[in-house]
């Protein structure tokens, strides 16, 4: 699988400790859920960020998707809490 830019926002970013990273997930990582499982193993911060999975929203290539979505040829995947703008 090619390189994916992973973005974190708001409380998710604070837990992970960075706002952005480039990752190359191993074979078998085919859905957003798979990606979260794998990212959670990268550091204590990642583990903490992905612990409350129900509170994390996901976007693939800047479009909201459910976590069961396939990654396909995604180049940008974002994780963030429920939005609170407006």
């Amino acid at each position, binding site marked *: 699988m090619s390189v994916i830019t992973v*973005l974190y926002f*708001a409380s998710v970013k604070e837990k992970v400790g960075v706002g952005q990273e480039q990752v190359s997930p191993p074979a078998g990582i085919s859905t957003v859920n798979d990606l979260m499982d794998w990212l959670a193993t990268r550091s204590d911060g990642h583990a903490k960020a992905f612990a409350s999975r129900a509170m994390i929203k996901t976007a693939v290539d*800047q*479009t909201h998707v459910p976590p069961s979505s396939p990654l396909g040829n995604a180049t940008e995947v974002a994780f*963030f809490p429920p*939005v*609170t*703008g*407006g």
Partner: protein
Amino acid sequence: MLGPTVRVQREPFDPGAELNAFLSQTPHAGGIAVFVGQMRDFRGADRASGEPVSAMSLEHYPGMAERELSALVADAQSRWRLDGVCVIHRTGDLAPADPIVFVAAASAHRADALEACAFLIDWLKTKAPFWKKETTGAGPRWVEATSADDARAARWDK
């Protein structure tokens, strides 16, 4: 008719100037509905019982925020007959009473304008990638999404 306006900006904006600019672009509209969201200086149901808030910081997802707002505008245009639509959203550091968001919809008939405006702010609140962090006496804290916002947005589900 000009195309819709969608702006995400760090700079403050002037709601009155934005309203007049919008009206000047929609001279044939009979009804213009506007919503202005401004920074509240308290959390909770009302100011008397709420926790004082002294400052706010608004984070957003650059790129997706503009895309999502444009998609909401296109959706509104497909549901109602609109002469014009304008959505402006602040980011960065805000002080109490600062305008955060400005939504305007113009139509020949007021029902379309009123409904499109309510739709836009309701969906913006649940779909546009912005996050508020409020500073209270206990320090800065992320604002949590509310089920009331989800319920209001769900009214517009087709």
